[in-house]
């Protein structure tokens, strides 16, 4: 053997939610059109885009004028993003942008405007013309600020595609016929939300600001739920909510959609009369869960959980779906990565999760009902840590929320998360089952334990080895138990042996030792 030591260690971290967002806007590629009259500038931008896109598939096309750009688009060429100079002869960037909008393209690209002049002047010009650019860059710009701007555009394209895919497969709850009033000023968010709501059969009306929202509620007061952006021009979401509450009371559920997830903002939303909130960027699973919670039944939360659970049971996930579903709620790759690819260990963690956490939300619910904040915090914390280990970010996020609310002694808020976390847990449990089943059938190992004939002396030795391991709290206890259980040919006491097995699995070696001594009393 060589001389030297090898040290290895294993640290468990909670996955930050920031990371999750970052992952969503990971860019896989895209088509970019560069419009600039200056030869050198055009070349530099093209090089920067391509250079940064080394690991992604970015197609770049360059043109020298606004006219050429329009011709390109009019021919039906598709682009995800356009990087366009402002000051160009004939048609300048802003005019070109107006013409592009006038084309009414079905897949209209994001437009990033670039200028060597004052970017504020460009901004003003855009406002005057009533146009919006996805981003404004001041020349000369660094490769990284260009790439950031591109990422936010192309990333969003990826995000939509991804979310749409997930949601198509994710139809456990019927929200068909639910009537939603969407109040949102950002055009991109509008389109995305409306499309997703429509896919679930939800009937949605759109208000572009708070004033329109109040008018729409006045006109046809038959909405099941309002999704309310907080910061909007003309009238913000808080004011609109106050007006709706003053006029029509508190029956209509109003959900705040806000990028501010600070406690104060949530508090402000609540004060203005909103019932709940969804954080932005919107997690669509959370959005659907929130709609389900408030729109399906406005007064009884626990019956909602039942409803949701029932509908999941009524639509069991079929085997073919298992791969898609696995990707939807458990990130197997992330989970495996944390365990350096040890699949057996991962499977074991999944099994353990299923055994230990199936009823965890029921427990959590009763802790909260009994005002037992200490136990509730502790359980939420455990769920959070364990979900991180197996790679289920949604469940982890909900558990973290509950932990925080418990820590702040806000039982009401914590209870509000219960339907969400139950739903998320249900998904995860179904996926664990699917995953474990699919793994079992593919490997198909003969798990029938073959009893090995051993002499009484040998058998006693095995018992003694296990005993010593247990006495020393040694991690080999489990292996020793397996050896012993293979040698058990007479079913002594199945129940006692099972208990012994589960004590060892839970690393309760003291309890296991007691159990062992009951089965096989120490001799001499």
């Amino acid at each position, binding site marked *: 053997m060589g001389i030297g030591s090898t040290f290895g260690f*294993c640290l468990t971290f909670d996955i930050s939610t920031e990371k999750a967002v970052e992952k969503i806007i990971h860019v896989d590629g895209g088509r970019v059109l560069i419009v600039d009259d200056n030869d050198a500038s055009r070349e530099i931008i093209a090089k920067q885009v391509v250079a940064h896109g080394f690991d992604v598939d970015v197609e770049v096309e360059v043109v020298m004028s606004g006219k050429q750009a329009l011709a390109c688009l009019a021919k039906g060429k598709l682009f995800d993003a356009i990087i366009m100079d402002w000051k160009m002869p004939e048609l300048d960037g802003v005019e070109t942008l107006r013409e592009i909008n006038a084309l009414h393209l079905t897949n209209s690209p994001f437009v990033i405007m670039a200028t060597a002049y004052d970017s504020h002047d460009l901004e003003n010009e855009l406002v005057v013309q009533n146009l919006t650019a996805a981003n404004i860059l001041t020349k000369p710009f660094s490769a990284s600020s260009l790439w950031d701007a591109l990422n936010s555009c192309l990333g969003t394209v990826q995000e939509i595609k991804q979310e749409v895919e997930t949601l198509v497969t994710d139809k456990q709850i019927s929200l068909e016929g639910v009537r939603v009033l969407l109040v949102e000023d950002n055009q991109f968010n509008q389109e995305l939300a409306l499309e997703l709501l429509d896919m679930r059969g939800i009937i949605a009306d759109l208000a572009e600001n708070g004033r329109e929202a109040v008018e729409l509620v006045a006109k046809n007061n038959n909405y099941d739920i309002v999704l309310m952006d907080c910061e909007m021009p003309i009238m913000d979401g808080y004011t609109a909510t106050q007006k709706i509450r003053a006029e029509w009371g508190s029956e209509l559920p109003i959900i705040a959609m806000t990028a501010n997830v600070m406690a104060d903002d949530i508090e402000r939303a609540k004060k203005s009369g909103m019932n709940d909130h969804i954080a932005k960027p919107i997690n669509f699973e959370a959005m659907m869960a929130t709609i389900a919670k408030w729109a399906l039944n406005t007064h009884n939360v626990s019956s909602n959980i039942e409803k949701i659970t029932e509908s999941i049971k009524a639509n069991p996930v079929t085997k073919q779906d298992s791969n898609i579903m696995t990707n939807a709620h458990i990130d197997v790759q992330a989970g495996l990565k944390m365990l350096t690819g040890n699949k057996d*260990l991962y499977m074991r963690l999944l099994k353990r999760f299923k055994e230990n956490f199936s009823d965890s939300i029921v427990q959590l619910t009763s802790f909260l009902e009994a005002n037992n904040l200490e136990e509730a915090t502790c359980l939420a914390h455990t769920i959070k840590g364990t979900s991180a280990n197996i790679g289920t970010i949604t469940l982890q996020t909900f558990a973290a929320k509950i932990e925080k609310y418990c820590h702040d002694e806000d039982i009401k808020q914590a209870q509000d998360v219960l339907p969400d976390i139950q739903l998320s847990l249900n998904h995860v449990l179904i996926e664990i089952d699917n995953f474990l089943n699919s793994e079992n059938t593919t490997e198909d190992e003969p798990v029938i334990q073959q009893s090995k004939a051993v002499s009484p002396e040998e058998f006693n030795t095995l018992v003694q080895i296990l005993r010593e391991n247990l006495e020393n709290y040694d991690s080999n206890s489990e292996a020793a138990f397996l050896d012993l259980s293979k040698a058990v040919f007479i079913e002594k006491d199945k129940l006692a042996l099972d208990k012994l097995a589960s004590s060892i699995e839970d690393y309760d070696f003291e309890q296991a030792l007691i159990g062992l001594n009951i089965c096989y009393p120490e001799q001499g």
Partner: protein
Amino acid sequence: MNNSKRAVILAVDDAPEVLDIIKETLAADYDIKLATRGEIALKIA
């Protein structure tokens, strides 16, 4: 390698899955003792 010279590591965590991970990762190179509660850890140490 001489078995008696292996370093001994005591891992204490109330979450058994954490002990799973530690055991799987380190058992090939170290003698591992496992405890799910602080009192047990004190007894072992």
